[in-house]
Each structure stands twice: as C-alpha cells, then as structure tokens.
C-alpha cells in the first residue's frame, strides 16, 4: 500500500494522478489552498478506493509554514513513498511585462515556493532513504519564448533544481522525476486557444506520470511527442528564434 503526499492536490493533473493511486488503496496526504475543493477531492478518492485521506489547507506561497507542513505530512503518513508537487499558476505574460511586482509574485508561485518546499522535503526523504519525488515542471522551461517567458523562467529554475537534487538524492536511494507536460486541457489553461491535436487530457498526462514514477524515469515529457517538439525548438539558432513568435 502506497503512502502519497500531493502538494497542489486540487490541480486537475494531480487529481487524475490521485485517482490512479486511489484504486490501489493508497493513503493520501493532500495539500491545497481551497478547503472545500480539497474535501470534495477527498470524497472522490475515498469512493474510488483510497484507504485514508488526510487534508491540509495551506497556500504554498507561505514559505514560513512549510516546516510545520512537512512535519504534519510525515507524522501523518509515517513514510512518504511518493511526493507529487503539482501546484502552480499560469501567469498573464503581458501583465507581467507591465508590472514587476506581479512578475515576481508569479515567479514565487511557480519557482520559489517549489524550491523552498523541495528543500525541506528532500532532507526528510534523504533521511528515510526511500521514495520518489515527482515535480511537475513544463516544456515551457526548455526555452524562453516571447509568449510565455516568465512561466518558462520559473519552470526552467524548477527543472534545473530537480536535476541537481536528483543527482544528490540518488545516493540516498531516493528518486526525483521531472515531469514536463505540454499543453493540457485543465482549468489553468481554460480560455487559451490551444491547438487541439497537441492538447492532452489530464487523464493522459496522469497515466504517464504514474508510469514515470513506477519506472523511475528521470525526465518525462508528456505526451511523449513533446520531447521531439522541444528538441526541434531548442535546436533553432537564436538569430532565427528571436525573429519568430513562439
């Protein structure tokens, strides 16, 4: 029986992952901002077979509360087999270009809070010498694009941080998986005009996250074809790239 902690548990992708684990009788520790949504998620998981679901309401931007959160998480679950970090926001790029405070706030949402949380979590996982940390980064972090570079910067920071952490925790037997989804049809991307053929459902992405954790993948693009797309995007020479509007 797995013991799973999910940070940003009401996100559509996290919820679909949780459903996959719930059917195996998993015990959960769920963290989210919205208490009502969190308890609805808990009801759903129990109906789908979860053994037990503990809830913790917190805005993960409140970094000073992380120590208490991690304490509660480990004392509730005893041991954490899987920790999934799924919280994040999609910044309004144009607004961030006008307002530096907003830009930093969004950067904090998507990068600083993740780094802070990973730091505390990693130490506990290192001490327990087992388990997997899966972090939802994004293909957006692979290259800064004019349409979305604030989000991309934050995700690049997360991806690089995870890369280093993976090499450190490997020695302790703890695995770190960096998940890089492409376009996903979730409430976060609602209202965006995403190309239908390239847009995955949260269920599809969840299945590949589930597999990436089982198979101890280091970096998992999801759906898989984004690896090809990003290889091409990364290989475009800068003098051409800066002229394009990606």
């Amino acid at each position, binding site marked *: 029986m797995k013991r799973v902690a999910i940070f940003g548990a009401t996100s*559509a992708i996290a919820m679909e992952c949780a459903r996959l684990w719930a059917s195996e009788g998993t015990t959960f520790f769920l963290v989210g901002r919205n208490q009502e949504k969190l308890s*609805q*998620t808990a*009801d*759903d998981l*129990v*109906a*789908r077979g979860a053994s037990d679901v503990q809830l913790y309401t917190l805005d993960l931007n409140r970094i000073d509360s992380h120590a208490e959160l991690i304490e509660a998480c480990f004392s509730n679950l005893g041991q954490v087999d899987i920790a999934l970090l799924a919280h994040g926001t999609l910044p309004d790029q144009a607004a961030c270009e006008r307002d530096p405070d907003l830009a930093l706030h969004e950067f904090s949402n998507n990068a600083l809070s993740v780094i802070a949380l990973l730091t505390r979590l990693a130490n506990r996982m290192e001490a327990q010498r087992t388990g997997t940390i899966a972090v939802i980064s994004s293909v957006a972090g692979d290259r800064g694009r004019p349409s979305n570079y604030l989000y991309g910067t934050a995700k690049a920071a997360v991806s690089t941080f995870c890369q280093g952490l993976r090499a450190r925790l490997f020695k302790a037997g703890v695995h770190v998986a960096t998940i890089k989804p492409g376009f996903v049809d979730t*409430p976060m991307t609602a209202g965006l005009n995403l190309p239908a053929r390239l847009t995955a459902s949260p269920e599809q992405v969840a299945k590949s996250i589930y597999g990436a954790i089982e198979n101890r993948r280091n970096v998992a693009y999801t759906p898989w074809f984004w690896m090809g797309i990003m290889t091409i995007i990364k290989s475009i020479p800068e003098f051409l790239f800066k002229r394009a509007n990606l």
Partner: protein
Amino acid sequence: MRQLAQAHKAVLPFGNGRSYGDSCLSASDTLLALRPLNRFISADWETGLIRAEAGVTLEEILSLAIPRGWFLPVTPGTKYVTLGGAIANDVHGKNHHARGTFGCHVRSFALTRSDRPTLVCTGAQNAELFAATIGGLGLTGVIEWAEVQLIPIRSSMVDTITIRFGSTAEFFHLCDELDQSHEYTVAWVDCLSRGSSAGRGVFMAGNHAPEGVLQTDNRRKLTVPFVPPFSAINTVSLRALNSIYYRAHRTNREPRRVSYDPFFYPLDRILNWNRIYGPRGFQQYQCVIPNENAEPAITEVLDTIARAATGSFLAVMKKCGRIASPGLLSFPLPGVSLALDFPQHRTLNNTLFSRLDSIVRDSGGRLYPAKDAHMSSGDFRHFFPNWAQLESLRDPALCSRFWQRVTDS
C-alpha cells in the same frame, strides 16, 4: 449561469455529446460543458448507493462498481454517456421490461437553476422538478450530482442465448416467452429483408451469470481513424452485411457466457464508429408503438423501410415493459421500440421519415427526442402532451435547438 444566460440569451448543459439529434445543442450555440464535473461524492458498497457529480460517465461508474459486485440498474447501448445525460434523456436498456428506465433508479439529485438557489429533488421533495428533470432534456436546470441505486451482481459475465427468428410474429412470440425468464432481451432485425424473409432477425437474451469473475473489461478498442469521403454503408454493402450476420447466428438455447462489455456495449468497441457514414453522417429513427397496435405497425414500418431500400446494419427492436418512469417526458411506453440508423440523405426527412411518422402517429406511438432531428412541432406536442408542463418548469436561462424547433409554433 445567470451571467452566461444574459450574455448569450440561453445556454444548455452538455455532457458527453452522445445524443444523436439537436437535443444536446444549445439554442445560442454556447454550452455548459459539464464533463469535467466528474467526482464521486460517496459510494456505499454495502448498499450499492452511489452519489456522483453529473459529468461522471457510466463507464467510470462501472469501473468502480463491477469489482465490488455492483452494476448499473439500467444501461443504454453505450457506456460513454454521463450520469446527467442518462437522467436528462431518461435512458432505457435491454432490461426495460424488468426494471423500467434509468430514472426509476435515481433516488435524488441537486438541481441548480438561474432563478433560485440550488435545490435537492427527490420523489417527495421538490417532486414536480424531480419528475420534470427526468427525461427533461437538460432544460429544468443543471444537475450537479445525483444519487443512484445500483444492483448487485455475482459476476461480470452474462449468460446469453441467441435465437434466430423468421418474422415479426415470431419475434413477438419470443418476447412473450423469454422476457419472463431473462432480465435482458433485445433483437437485431434485418431491415432490408422482404417477402418470405421479411422481419427476420436475431433475438438475444441474457442474465447476469450467477458465478464467475468480477472484473472490468479493458480490451483494446478498434477505431475508425478518419472519415471516408462517402458512406461505407449503402444498399449493396448493407444487404451483404445483414445476410452474413443473419446466417452467422444459429439458434442456440444453450447459454453462452460472455463478458458484460460485448453484450451491453458492442459499438463501444469501435471508437468513432459513426465515421463509417462519411462526412454526411447518419440520422437515427427510433419509435415506440403501443402493444395493442405493435405487430401490424412494426410490420408496416419494416416493410416501408425495406421498400425504400435504405437503412443500416444497426437496427434494434425491443419490447418495453409496463414499469412507469417518474419522468414527465419519458420516451418508453408499454409496447415495442424500434431504432434504426440511416445514412444521411437530403430527401430522408421528406420521404421515408414522413411516411414512418404517419404510421407511428396512427398507431398511437411516439418518437425519441434524444435521437431525433426531424420531428415536427405538431407531432411532438401530440406525442408528449406533458410538454407544456415542462415548458412551464424550464429554467429561463436554458434552451436547446431541439426545444426551439419542437415548441416553435
């Protein structure tokens, strides 16, 4: 909801888009896409009572219920419909004679309307809206969640028997005989056969197996990957297909044990099966004829179709039972239901369908709104005299193209 309605005049709750006609299209073309509302709220596996949000599909319910020994009390021919859609169309299945419609098993639901706070409806509480919402085509409000009583099963397998019949009269005899002993009965009919073989078909009956495994069926599905430039279903291919299918089935009263999935959902195996009809698609005709006129009227309907030399492989006949639905605009009545797909053709509605409509009208039958794309407003009001009651309970913010069409005077 009020804001949306003000901006677009009228919206419509939309589930998984499996209705065949315009009953799931919004009058304003702006929909409330409710499929993401797919959380379970509670599931009591001791009693089989589940409560789930309206966007949950029947497939999702089955995947939880089957391993725990429960099954849907009533299921239509596809599991890719939402709970909300199953209520809004008051769907029925192969066990209508034994358990009535889906609405008969709905204990309660929450209804959100633009003109009042969310209310919980049951047979006793807000009973008027409860009845209007079952078969209410999504017009009485948005169903947030619903509570359904499942039925216990001891195995996910079904014991089936298959019997060929040579005429409509034989079909009726088989119904009388086998509806007693079998929870599920349905017949496939060869819609092109005429003369001595007119009305021939294959009768299938089944019961949940008393023993065996309890597992969901996750076999690989086929898919129709693209839309061919023209319909693959034409008179020649159909005549051949029907003949092969009829001959491939032998009468076999020895029960054969099959998984629930191919028994209940044969078409779900082929994703995007509708594409075989080409870019024009298809139109379905589903009617029900009351028992007293069923035999002559069904014979006449089948004869009319065979003369028109069109139709499709998917022709399904089923005797509906007497269990009344709580729904105001429920489709089934005690009698025989016949459903056929036709490759879309520009003259379909004016020629064949209008001839069939007059047979249905004269025999006291009616058409199924969930499948309809042609019913006249006169016919609709005649078939469903309770329509005015539904109109008075309709949420002013909701309207479908179907409703606009059939209530337009």
